[in-house]
């Protein structure tokens, strides 16, 4: 019956696999047990829990570690509210900033890129209040600034390309 544990994510199996296998060894086979394990595997894939062991070690900045520690199953009410406020504020503020830039600059490329990229950039800003919450303030600032820069440059490129075409 322990073959059903293969349905669980590998990180989960590394953490709880041996314990679950030991527990399964004493269980009687039944359809209820199969259903319980399948439902548990679906839950583990949809809601992988952040355990202390899955938090990146100090100085471990590999992308995999960052993604694992970001992968939270659920957010608190306060985090969701803060994230929604950031989203609304950025979705209103970034296009406004683009309009201001348009009036200040002769070249419209930079303001248009900001306008086109305002939605994904608002998502990035909102993520620092939810998805990136487990990180320190400094780490969040670095990640958000880097993601915003890449996104903005991407839209500047797209805008320039559209002008050429």
């Amino acid at each position, binding site marked *: 019956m322990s073959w059903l544990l293969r349905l669980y994510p590998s990180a*989960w199996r590394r*953490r*709880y696999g*041996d*314990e*679950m*296998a*030991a*527990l*399964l060894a*004493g*269980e009687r086979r039944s359809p*209820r*047990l199969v259903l*319980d*394990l*399948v*439902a*548990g*595997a679906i*839950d*583990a894939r949809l809601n992988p*829990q*952040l*355990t*202390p062991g899955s938090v990146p070690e100090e100085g471990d900045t590999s992308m995999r570690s960052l993604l694992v520690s970001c992968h939270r*199953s*659920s957010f*608190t009410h306060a985090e969701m509210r803060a994230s929604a406020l950031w989203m609304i504020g950025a979705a209103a503020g970034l296009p406004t900033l683009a309009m201001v830039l348009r009036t200040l600059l002769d070249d419209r490329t930079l303001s248009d890129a900001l306008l086109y990229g305002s939605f994904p950039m608002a998502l990035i800003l909102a993520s620092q209040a939810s998805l990136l919450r487990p990180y320190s303030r400094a780490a969040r600032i670095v990640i958000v600034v880097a993601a915003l820069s890449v996104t903005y440059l991407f839209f500047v490129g797209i805008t320039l390309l559209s002008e050429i075409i």
Partner: protein
Amino acid sequence: MKRPSSQGLDEFGRFTEPAVLILISLAGGPKHGYAITADIERVAGFRPGPGTLYGAIARLESRGLIEPLPSDDRRNPYRLTPLGREALSVRLAALEAVTRAGQRRLARA
């Protein structure tokens, strides 16, 4: 004044009841998965499956309500943390208040 908190137990969905039963089991001392299952069966009259048990254990551990103890074999024992003790205490007090209210109404009916 800071309100006592059940530390997110209400957000566990279908794992809330097994999680509370695990906390109750660990309040009696550290146990590994098999011993927790047997204890819950003794106390609550049903036996949670391994998928349900470890879904609840993972949630409790990720929120710092329980913690694993070092072990030589593959059966890791767990113990209640001070945060878990507080969460259980708050949860049991809430359940007690609901039970008392229900019993008062039944007595009047």
